[in-house]
């Protein structure tokens, strides 16, 4: 049964990882605007003219 010690440790590490990712998402501003992305995702990408350097990471708005 001692394996449970290990499992608990793993489960806590996994959960903490998700918490950390959530913090990152909050900091990146993902929860600041919960409407526009839902519209943006429906736009067609134009194959030719789309420029790659459109900022991918949403930086914080400072």
């Amino acid at each position: 049964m001692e394996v449970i010690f290990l499992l608990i440790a793993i489960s806590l590490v996994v959960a903490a990882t998700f918490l950390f990712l959530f913090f990152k998402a909050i900091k990146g501003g993902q929860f600041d605007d919960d409407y526009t992305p839902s519209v943006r995702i429906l736009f067609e990408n134009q194959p030719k003219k789309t420029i790659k350097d459109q900022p991918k990471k949403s930086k914080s708005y400072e």
Partner: protein
Amino acid sequence: MKQSFPTQTRPKCYHCGEDCDTDVLVFDEKEFCCQGCRLVYEVLAENGLCEFYSLDSNPGKSQKSGAKLRNRFDYLDDPDVAKGLLDFKNATESHVTFYIPQIHCSSCIWLLENLFQINAAIIGSRVDFVKRKVQLKFLHGKLNLKELVNLLSILGYEPSVSLSDLDRERAPQVDRRTLTKLAVAGFCFGNMMLFSIPEYFSEAELLGEGFKGLFDYLNVLLSLPIVFYAASDYYISAWHAVRRRSLNMDVPIVLGIVAFFLYSLWEIFTQGNAGYMDSLGGLLFFLLLGKIYQQKTFATLKFDRDYKAYFPVAVTRLAKDAEEVIPLTKLQVGDRILVRNEELIPADALLLSPHANIDYSFVTGEEVPVPTQKGELIYAGGRQRGDAVMLAVQKLPSQSYLTDLWNNGEKPEERLQLLEPLANRISGIFTWTVLAIAFAAFAFWIGKDTPMAFKAFTTVLIVSCPCALSMSTPFTLGNTLRIFGKGKFYLKNAEVVEKLALVDTVVFDKTGTLTDPAKASIDFVGETLSQETRSVLKAMVRQSTHPLSNRINQWLDTAQPAMLEGLSEAKGAGLEGKYMGQVFRLGSSEFTGAEKNAELKGNVVYLSVESVVLGYFHIQSGLRQSAPEVVQALAGDYGLHILSGDHDHEREALSKRLDAGIKFNFNQSPSDKLHYIQSLNQTGQRTLMLGDGLNDAGALRESQVGVAITDQVSHFSPASDAILDAGSFAKIPSFLAFARGSRRIVKFSFGLSFLYNIVGLSLAVQGLLSPVLCAILMPLSSISVVVFTTLATHLMGIRKGLIHLDPR
């Protein structure tokens, strides 16, 4: 001679979807209503951005508003202004965020995010639709700020840049900290529940002694972030309340948290028992959830705008016969400034030009411009209509008559005292009662069973921790806020709901609030107008943007416009049209050569043909359609007052149509309005002020609840507690009744949570409250209160007609 005009369906503009009623421009086989719209299409077509038109039908905004001045963005070249506006700047790149109220559909988002296809110097742009903001990143070596703004304005997305944008104190509007705290609490709570379940089902013993201890210690570890981070707001709030020698709801919460934590530590480390850490986690998780729910804000609306949000950033100064555009902040008393058509008067100033035509609609709500003569004082906030005028500045913008009114008066925090939230009033009694019960239980047990005495004392504090109690307010008020928002009544925060419920006096501003410019009553007095004359008039007035022309245009409703040979507008005087060789004049008495009729009140527009006066239009502002019903509905429960800046010539007409119980007050200056509200407050009346203009700003601030009425909610409105869309004016009685109803719901749910407290307390005083009971009772009470308030508010919303159920 009569002429019949063929009826035709007018083509719709491909860009903005408006009827093309003047000349239809055909370009690229598409119809456009004006050059502006055609130009936008041309720019988009050239850059392969016509997808703009396929996302939404006719997504553009009409560009009719006319020729704008070429140099109106010159102030953006000023390094101080640019520095104030830019978010970020390095050697090559600049970032700037603009507020663009014109953003209204998905096509707008698409176009603004594809700006880089029009100008390569734009690296990227990102739209925040809810806030109507766009963040632009551009290479300032190839494109300066002025050119960028020009590009946006050509496309019909002219950013609204006002003086307040230059103050660089833009805190992130979304409160990320509460969300982070909720995440921490949720993480800890979830894991603590998992570690506590074996204990509740006696599984821990099966696993062996080591596990039970481990689970308890892990719970202690997980409780630390909750107690020392997630709960921090409650400590601060409780501490502030205690220092002010009052008790708010957060005081018993903090008592509970401390009791929870210390007692559980003692249980776990000295007794080897499980403690109540999981319930503590649940408590904070639910509390923070309620907090987030209550924080609903209407991000597009600004309730605390000061005069800076209204004034322009720059002004044209005349120095040594040369024009220069300077930032408003550098304007000095005595400067001579030039104000062009449609521009705002930024400071109280003397008129140096022979005459001006000032539209004070933002100030008074009356949109008919006021003619002003040389040497008269013009107040800041007016807008010039007509040719450019020269002014001499008398006072700085920050000290003008209206901003003075705005800045003086009591601070909003000070006036809140009269209406304390229900929860705060109850919490005082609640806290003392709980402490009394805890000490009584302690005194009862102390002689017989000392450990039991401590257990009873702490568990009383734990179980009575007003989780359910403190959740009933945020959820009821949060729901009310959302339901009001659907009815286009936007409150600044949840507290306003409680204040609305307690209001007993309603004060209306007349112009623009009770009256509606679009509902003007028009009479033509004079010779009967022939069909032909009507056609000529129609052709004349529909070309003019003057508000009186618009009203006559509406009055001429069905007339078909005639073909004119010529038309000219003398700004501030009238219109002159030529038809079949005859000169038609429509306008002031001087312009038409009519004898002025001093008896007439309201606006008078004379008509002459070949210098023969045919008669005059008598135009009076009409009541809003629903105004009599609203007044009637409120008359029973509220004291009603009307404040008007106008002369009292409309008193009779008004009192005939409105209930006689209203107190009318005419000739009220803005400071009179403020003092009127003050005197009502001093007699203990709880006032709700409804107003629309800058001249109501003082009164709106002074009243317990100030509601600004506006036709376009995203546009400027004076600082207020709530913003009401003018279309929802008829629903005011429902809103007020709903606010009272939601206060009853709060009271009822308090009763419900007291019930849980009584059950919990009766177990706690006997020392019977086990961790598992606590873990069941606390979430159960919270959830049932949330379910109850949500159901009750929505049911009430349906009954009051504020929620419309989908007919399907």
